């Protein structure tokens, strides 16, 4: 190119830009979105029963574009009356929607998918304006995922009778979703709910209500029957009212751990189902064998996608020490050309933070870190003069003790920690109260898979981060919640077993949290005179059984086992919190080894138990009869059923490991059914042997270790069973038995922070207590609300429900590809 004498050039003239090659604004047109808002006179009501509803006298909320501060529209602050109206509408619609043939439901959902596609640009623009996120993301990620969910779940509606045989809809679902992916997260709830025959009342987040309201309109255009999908807007208090509404059968929540815990407590003991998708502090683990340049871009996807306001954001970067310096330098360089701007600008990497209060909270975290002496690197290469923005931030020189390392910031802030070995990386990654997601970066696939399996989280991406698809469930371990959104695993959150109707324990069970489970150990009993003149039998002393050995009860109290005739037929130990503590420790010690055992080996052990039980068939049946006052035939049947059940679960030991999910990924998305961890189990009094077997067997075949409280009234069978365990090669600590007062022991199991799930089969009060207290560490619970089930019945005693409870789903995304060109 020749150099000609250049005159002074105008800013932003072609000549000037030709010289500098600068970027300019590239705005997406918002005219259609503005027209849609105008159509509604910028004032929205609720969408109930297929109509816009604007009750009189409601307060309003002004919704804004965080990038510009511009007012978009006013929305209603609903009241309890509005909740009631919406739930009534959903209940009414449920009566017909639930009976609508699966194929017809599928056609409705297919129609909705098509209609969203028709309006996808409008939806993308509204979402970007309302939330502040880049149009590139709503256009290329949020909305395509939404559409894909509708198509995928239209398929589940079609296949419900075959694929979800034995399950029925729950009823009316109350869904509460956050502001970070307003439409996408709402869709994750709505699709699964509708496909399984439920109807829904949705409460969008305060900051971001518009896309849900637009969606209601689109569903109506698509012909979805009135009342099937209702949207009400309001405060968090209205959200609580929705969750608490007696006619809501299931609460589906995505949001903060704190609010999730509040909801758990609020609806404890009501018989409602609950799924929680909560916070996270997900690790990005980078090994020296990683493609570091690609890792940098992966980190952009991990922590600067949606301004870092992503529950699965890769906010903790763990880097192998040997490449730590290089990666940090590369990241800093990357940030020098990172662009922030208006959500409708197509030349940006990151948009605005949803609201000033959120921006401030992020800022406080970073300032705290600065005060601690952390090194804070912020890129301000392109920082808009106005609007609610926070720069992409990299924090080094921090450690596990720092608040920014431990807590969820929910903003564009990445903390970096070095590690030495893979083992240390795994330990650091798992050193968190959360367990939502994570990613592993290495070209060594053996290493990647082992690390992926070892991280306690619901989703692990290999050499990638933040990929989502309707065919793979998303959800957490630990305090990141329970239940999954997406995939077949997600459907179980919206169904209950076909034999079961919704438990409705007296709505407010009388429960005193302070005194629940209090107990005074038993004292000696008087002989009833029947043993007079006889030589005493050799006394059999039943102790606790944990860590593979019999242990004396810590408190050295005993409780008599009394048969229906009032005769004392033995004594068992009176367990207390210390016995439980020891048992939980033993269970944890056994857990890693048991989980890693070949499934074949676990099956063999359970079959061996059946064999050993068979040998003692008559003896145990006799004791059952003695203890419960039932006939010997009944006892024999219970033993035979127990043997059959052991076979059933032995069979499942190697047939429920997971599947390959058919996501849009080029590669493999592996669904792994992992053990839940240490499960506390409180057995019912009915069927003291069969219920005990029915509960422990599915748990242990799927790799869990357990602390089990046998029937409070008739615990002797379980104590007989430890001899069966001992002779069946069951490793020590896999099954631990603590006898005593059911509620007393359940209280301490449910309160134990290192028990991952609690299965409780007792009274309504106890069920409520277990659900309530489990909120503390977001423990998974399975309780019976004081209702007994028919343990002899196959559906009730060994249905799919047991498998669902015994595993947690992890999805591992493994992209493939190395073949290129010729």
């Amino acid at each position: 190119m020749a150099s000609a004498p250049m005159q002074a050039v105008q800013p932003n003239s072609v000549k000037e830009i030709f010289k500098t090659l600068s970027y300019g604004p590239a705005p997406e047109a918002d005219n259609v979105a503005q027209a849609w808002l105008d159509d509604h006179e910028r004032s929205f009501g609720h969408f109930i029963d297929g109509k816009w509803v604007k009750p009189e006298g409601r307060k309003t909320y002004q919704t804004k574009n965080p990038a510009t501060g511009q007012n978009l529209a006013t929305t209603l602050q609903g009241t309890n009356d509005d909740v009631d109206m919406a739930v009534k509408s959903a209940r009414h619609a449920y009566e017909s929607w639930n009976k609508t043939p699966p194929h017809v439901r599928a056609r409705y959902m297919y129609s909705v998918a098509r209609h969203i596609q028709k309006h996808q640009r409008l939806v993308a623009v509204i979402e970007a304006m309302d939330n502040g996120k880049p149009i590139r993301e709503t256009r290329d990620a949020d909305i395509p995922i939404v559409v894909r969910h509708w198509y995928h779940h239209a398929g589940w509606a079609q296949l419900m009778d075959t694929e979800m045989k034995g399950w029925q809809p729950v009823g009316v679902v109350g869904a509460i979703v956050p502001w970070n992916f307003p439409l996408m997260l709402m869709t994750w709830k709505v699709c699964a709910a509708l496909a399984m025959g439920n109807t829904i009342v949705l409460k969008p987040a305060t900051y971001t209500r518009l896309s849900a309201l637009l969606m209601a309109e689109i569903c109506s255009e698509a012909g979805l029957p009135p009342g099937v999908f209702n949207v009400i807007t309001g405060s968090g208090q209205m959200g609580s009212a929705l969750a608490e509404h007696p006619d809501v059968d299931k609460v589906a929540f995505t949001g903060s751990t704190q609010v999730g815990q509040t909801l758990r407590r609020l609806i404890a003991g009501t018989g409602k189902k609950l799924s929680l998708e909560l916070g996270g502090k997900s690790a990005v683990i980078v090994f020296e064998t990683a493609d570091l340049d690609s890792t940098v871009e992966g980190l952009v996807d991990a922590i600067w996608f949606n301004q870092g306001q992503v529950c699965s954001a890769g906010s903790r970067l763990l880097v192998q020490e040997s490449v730590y310096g290089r990666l940090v330098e590369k990241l800093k360089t990357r940030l020098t050309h990172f662009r922030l701007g208006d959500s409708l600008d197509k030349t940006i990497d990151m948009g605005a933070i949803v609201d000033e209060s959120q921006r401030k909270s992020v800022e406080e975290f970073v300032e705290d870190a600065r005060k601690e002496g952390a090194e804070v690197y912020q890129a301000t290469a392109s920082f808009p003069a106005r609007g609610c923005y926070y720069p992409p931030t990299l924090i080094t020189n921090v450690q596990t003790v720092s608040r920014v390392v431990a807590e969820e910031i929910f903003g564009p802030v990445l903390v970096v920690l070095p590690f030495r070995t893979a083992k240390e990386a795994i330990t650091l990654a798992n050193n968190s109260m959360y367990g939502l997601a994570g990613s592993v970066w290495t070209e060594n696939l053996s290493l990647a898979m082992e690390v992926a399996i070892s991280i306690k989280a619901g989703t692990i991406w290999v050499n990638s981060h933040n990929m989502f698809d309707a065919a793979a469930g998303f959800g957490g371990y630990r305090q990141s919640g329970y239940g999954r959104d997406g995939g077949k695993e997600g459907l179980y959150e919206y169904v209950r077993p076909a034999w079961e109707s919704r438990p409705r324990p007296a709505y407010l069970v009388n429960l005193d949290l302070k005194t629940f489970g209090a107990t005074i150990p038993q004292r000696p009993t008087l002989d009833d005179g029947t043993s007079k003149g006889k030589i005493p039998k050799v006394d059999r002393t039943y102790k606790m059984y944990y860590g593979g050995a019999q242990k004396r009860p810590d408190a050295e109290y005993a409780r008599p086992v009394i048969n229906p005739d009032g005769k004392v037929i033995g004594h068992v130990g009176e367990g207390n919190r210390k016995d439980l503590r020891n048992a939980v420790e033993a269970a944890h010690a056994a857990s890693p080894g048991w989980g890693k055992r070949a499934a074949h080996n676990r099956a063999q052990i359970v079959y061996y138990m059946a064999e050993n039980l068979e040998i003692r068939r008559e003896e145990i049946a006799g004791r059952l009869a003695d203890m419960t006052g039932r006939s010997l035939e009944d006892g024999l049947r219970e033993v035979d059923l127990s043997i059959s059940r052991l076979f059933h679960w032995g069979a499942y030991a190697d047939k429920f490991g997971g599947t390959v999910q058919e996501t849009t990924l080029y590669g493999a998305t592996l669904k792994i059914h992992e053990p839940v961890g240490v499960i506390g189990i409180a057995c019912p009094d009915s069927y003291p042997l069969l219920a005990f077997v029915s509960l422990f067997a599915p748990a242990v075949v799927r790799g869990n270790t357990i602390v089990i409280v046998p029937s409070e009234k008739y615990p002797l069978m379980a104590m007989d069973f430890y001899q069966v365990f001992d002779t069946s090669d069951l490793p020590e600590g896999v099954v631990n038995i603590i006898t005593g007062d059911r509620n007393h022991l359940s209280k301490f199991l449910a309160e134990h922070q290192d028990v991952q799930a609690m299965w409780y089969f007792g009274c309504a009060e106890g069920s409520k207590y277990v659900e309530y207290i489990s909120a503390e560490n977001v423990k998974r619970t399975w309780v019976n609300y004081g209702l007994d089930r028919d343990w002899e019945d196959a559906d009730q005693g060994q249905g799919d429900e047991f498998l669902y409870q015994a595993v947690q789903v992890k999805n591992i995304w493994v992209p493939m590809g190395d073949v290129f060109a010729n």
Partner: protein
Amino acid sequence: MAAGNPGVEFDEAWIQNVYVNLSATKRRAEVLGTRRTVKKQWQAAWELRAVACIDLTTLAGDDTLSNVNRLCFKAKSPVRPDLLKALEMDDVGLTVGAVCVYPNRVADAINSLKAAGGSHIPVASVATGFPCGQTPLKTRLEEIRMAVADGAREIDIVINRQLALTGDWKGIYEEVRMMKEACSDAHMKTILATGELGTLVNVYKASLVCMMAGADFIKTSTGKEGVNATLMVGLVMVRAIREYFERTGYKVGFKPAGGIRSAKDACTWLSLMKEELGDEWTQPELFRLGASTLLVDIERQLFHFVYGRYAAAHEIPMS
């Protein structure tokens, strides 16, 4: 052109432990065009910059003086004067970056450019048994010397794929080193023929080895392989350029070639350079687009910017 790259001693350690993840690289390549876009006068200006970076190319068996002559005149006046005037760019002296031909046509090109008043535009010649390189080293080197003697100021050599595929990186280094010597003062672009290298790891290694051997530019492809200039491959190569710069302080240029036909693509390539290497690498001294038909699309886009109407191809002077 820039000062050029003198090269460094072959160091095998640089190409050990090279990791390139294809799927992750591809994901980044796919969003390059969606994270950045230019509109209005930015688009026009970027398109004009792309013009300045074009190596306007004809590499066909039936090339003769007449089409080379036409190409050279177009190289001198790549955009219609009325468009340049409307854009207030008529005083810039905009030309393409170079004219690229076979060795036998170098003299024709030199004479044509002289006739067009564009002698300052360099002529680039492909060489070394282009496109396959399956000829004896001796004749490959001689080809370079003859093209340089005919007046070529830039030489686009092809690397020996047989050596790359058998892992003889030292062998490639030595050949390219000799070619660099044969180029004398002419700038050397090394064509990796990435479509024939099998893996992205090989693309990265070949990039580093050629730069060590003194390549002034690394170039994706001859335009004759099954897969030519894709953004994914380009990304791998510019990352290698970045590493070489970090290690040595020498700036090596990049030339994607083959399959770049639309103005939009050209802007995305410019944006890739700007994002990954910085503004300096968007200048013709360090960035060239090997293309033959791209110019027509750019001119039509500029026409639309200036007149607000879509141009017919026949309204644009052909090259």
